């Protein structure tokens, strides 16, 4: 299946979710458990996607190459603790990554 078709199908599926209960209209009571669980979707998805991306840059590569991303993540976490802003993670993490990569010759 090609890239365009995947994007299109992902869009169609997402739209069907959006429109589903709106079209069924009359009051639909959703299970409370489902509603509670949905609160964790964003943090779980963000964490899994972030961890997957970090793992791809660090697992199975030599130490000198794995170190800059790991320190960048640490700098990002510290910056967010201090500022409570997600973009601070990028503003602190990327320069850390660049500097360390340069120093370690990555």
């Amino acid at each position, binding site marked *: 299946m090609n890239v365009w078709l*995947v994007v299109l199908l992902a869009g169609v599926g997402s739209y069907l979710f959006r429109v589903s209960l709106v*079209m069924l209209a009359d009051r639909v009571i959703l299970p409370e458990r489902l509603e509670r669980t949905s609160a*964790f979707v964003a943090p779980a*998805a963000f964490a899994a996607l972030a961890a997957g*991306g970090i793992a791809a*840059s660090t697992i199975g590569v030599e130490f000198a190459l794995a170190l800059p991303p790991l320190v960048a993540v640490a700098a990002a976490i510290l910056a967010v603790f201090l500022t409570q802003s997600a973009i601070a*993670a990028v503003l602190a993490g990327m320069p850390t990554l660049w500097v360390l990569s340069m120093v370690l010759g990555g």
Partner: protein
Amino acid sequence: MTNGTVEPVARVRGDAFAAGARAMLPWLAGIVPFGLIIGVSAAQADIPTLAGWLTGPTVYAGSAQVATIELLNVGAAPAVILLTVLIINLRLVLYSGAIAAHWRGTSWRWRATAAYLLIDPSFVVGMDRYQRHGDRHDAHRYYLGGAITLWVAWLLALGAGAVFGARLPTALRLEFVIPLYLVGEVVRRLDDRATRRAALTAAAVAVVASSAPLHLGVVLGIVTGLIAGATVRERNG
């Protein structure tokens, strides 16, 4: 304000769309950088940049778009990509169910359009207005004002990121911007115990399963994270 305490009805109605758009503005401060970053990642990924940008008007949900682009980039199987996207977007069914009562009696075409624009910020802005008393038509216009503002800003941000990102050298390692931004989004939410459990479980499983076949690591992480979060809250009552 010119004629005392009651504003003319026509003026209020005309303003409902603009009021919705204004209510969306604070959200844009957090959303536009995310859109820019996703646009950059679409440009840097090993897929046509336009296909990455198209996740905007089709999937129209930041985290699901990230999953689509990242998984396409690593060559994951289409079924795995679709499964991941649909699990991330399952919450849209909840939003659909919650807002359905307010859209009852509207035309089929209106609902089809309004539902297309349904996503976390438009849901919150819209529900806030629907739950207040007042004219329903104004509330619909308010929802559309907010939702359309968000849609335009999102697609522009993705486009700007994609154009800008295509010109940047790979030595900048911009593929790392998305994980860092997501780390930021997660760290911000760690105050709540159940959320913390969900996020840390999801991250741990995604790392351990990062070499799982078919790139199933991300979706496994999300599902176990959801289960971990849900069980904590239940025990707490």
